[in-house]
């Protein structure tokens, strides 16, 4: 196939990179969510992608009725609520639960969220108007820009901007605020944190709510680009997980970088090589990384 790569095809690269970047941003945010929860509980939360879905769907449903100012906070609040619910389910049995049962519980929650969303909002895709658009023939249409031979939509800029904001925000939160430092303390040594008087349960709860909130924000900004659909969570969640593992679980910066790279690689594979197997790319990368560097990925844990 690669033999057929023509100059024409290569000229498409900027476009592919930009659209991959948008998707990658979402992976990045999901990866950060994975890391936040992993750090505080050593749990991989399989329901992470569903937070994005909840944010996106709630926002899309509300955006058709109310303004962004109402829809955005409501959607994020819904996501946070979902996060709190997961925390309760994971927290309750946490003491004696094995890794297997934690995996199963979070998968259970993920399936349940999807089922509930389908029940509440149906299976159909829900269109959402872009944040900043122009009204054309009764439809809110997105502005478009020309950049390096590629088209870019205003909403995509929103996605990138919000991602950047969130990443910087997270960085400041974990470095500069007391709550953030307490959460980091929990991540490094739970027992130690408990001894100095940090309420570990509350920190775990906070980390779930935060990860869910992040996911929901991602969902809201992305709902005008992709359509909000009840089954969108799985793919985004798995992509985000791949990014989290690639970047080193628990490592925010790595996760963000890996997420964006993954998004771009997927997009390039689909655009330049085989779109039929585009979805397999993330998983192949994940498998290869897990197999070639298991000790590399695991070493961090062994030493922690």
């Amino acid at each position, binding site marked *: 196939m690669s033999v057929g790569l023509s100059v024409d095809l290569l000229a498409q690269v900027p476009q*592919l990179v930009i659209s991959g970047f948008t998707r990658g941003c979402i992976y990045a945010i999901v990866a950060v969510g994975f890391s936040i929860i992993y750090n505080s509980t050593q749990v991989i939360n399989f329901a992470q992608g569903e937070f994005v879905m909840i944010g996106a769907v709630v926002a899309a449903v509300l955006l058709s009725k109310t303004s962004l100012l109402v829809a955005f906070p409501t959607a994020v609040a819904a996501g946070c609520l979902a996060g709190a619910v997961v925390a309760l389910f994971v927290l309750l049995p946490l003491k004696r639960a094995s890794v297997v049962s934690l995996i199963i519980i979070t998968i259970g929650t993920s399936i349940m969220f999807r089922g509930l969303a389908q029940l509440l909002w149906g299976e159909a895709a829900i269109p959402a108007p872009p944040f900043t658009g122009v009204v054309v023939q009764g439809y809110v249409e*997105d502005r478009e820009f020309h950049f390096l031979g590629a088209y870019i939509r205003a909403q995509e800029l929103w996605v990138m901007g919000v991602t950047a904001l969130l990443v910087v925000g997270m960085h400041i939160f974990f470095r500069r605020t007391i709550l953030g430092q307490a959460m980091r303390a929990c991540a490094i040594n739970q027992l130690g944190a408990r001894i100095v008087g940090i309420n570990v349960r509350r920190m775990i709860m906070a980390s779930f709510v935060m990860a869910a909130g992040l996911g929901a924000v991602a969902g809201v900004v992305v709902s005008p680009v992709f359509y909000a659909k009840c089954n969108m969570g799985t793919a985004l969640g798995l992509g985000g997980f791949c990014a989290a593992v690639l970047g080193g679980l628990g490592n925010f910066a790595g996760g963000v970088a890996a997420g964006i790279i993954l998004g771009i690689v*997927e997009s390039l594979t*689909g655009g330049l090589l085989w779109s039929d197997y585009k979805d397999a790319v993330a998983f192949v990368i994940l498998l290869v990384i897990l197999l070639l560097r298991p000790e590399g990925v695991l070493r961090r844990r062994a030493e922690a």
Partner: protein
Amino acid sequence: MRKFTSFFALVLLVCFAICVAAAKTSKPPIVIGAIFSITGDNAPLGVPERDTAVMLAKQLNAKGGIKGRPVKLEIYDDGGKPEQAVQACNKLLARKDVVAIIGPTLTGPSLAIAGMCNRAKMPLISCAASVKITQPVLPYVFKTAQTDSLAVERLIDYLKKHKISKVGFINDSNAFGASGREQWLVASKKAGIETIALESFNSGDTDMISQLTKIRSAKPQAIVCWGTNPGPAIVAKNMRALGMKQPLFMSHGVSNPEFIKLAGTAAEGVTFPSGKIIVAEAIPSSDPQKRVLMQYSADFKKTYGKPATHFGGHAWDAFQLVVSALEKVGPDRVKIRKAIEDTKGFVGIGGVFSFSPKDHAGLTKEAFVMVQVRNGKWTLAK
């Protein structure tokens, strides 16, 4: 303790078996079974089918049913999964009072149960599109959905008329899209239309920029997109975003109002072969289907507050075929099958059906018209 465990496992197992055996229902008058994809990825197809069947049964019963006997529908949801369809079909087959089954919505479930129905001598009128359901012909299996190949042929006629010979093809990788791709590849080759780019996307995909970029670089004269919502809407939007000016052709998979809602202005100019239902008003009144189409369209709008789709039309055809057979020969599966096979010139929503022992699909490509979106409305394409 382990022995306790194994023992109780069996006790529970037996309890479950009894539960399965205990659940039985009473006998209604004339029962028509139905299996639709009411949930799952293909719910946009299955739900209007369900709604149509329910509406028709209600109308029929209001008029006094068939020779005084009311009709009862037993509607199962297969969720688009073959295995679930098999289970549902088995439940229907196990009942002596079911006279025929309409559905399933999709090709996979239809193929899964076709053999079963045929063996059990249960007339099955599928609402799915694939040719393989009725080729080779199984005596008891019919279908009402216009075969993909007819849609493809209709589209190809149109392309040839407009002298388009280099096409980029992109399809949804779900059942509908994959089947369309298969038909397209066969028919386009025959018609001398070159497919210079062939891509696919997943039903869950959120943007198709990478595929379209690849297609763009192949410089086709037109693009054909075969799929069900929301994919095609995304394709339309992304094409607009990429500044691609080629005409965009689609399949009958988008002939529902949701498509225009999703794609917004990007839907402008999209052309596709469709059943006549969505352009019922624009059909010349000389068309034999005009009256039926207008009637169904109005009824559906009145009952459910949304416009009728052509998928609902498949259920309309299936239901009415069974009913007309019932009126002729009464509730006897063997006779119903014969009656359907003998049906000629049945005016339905999908077209005018004429079945024969060799043709259980009953339609020609005249069933399709080319429809174009103009100003957010469906219009007949020239």
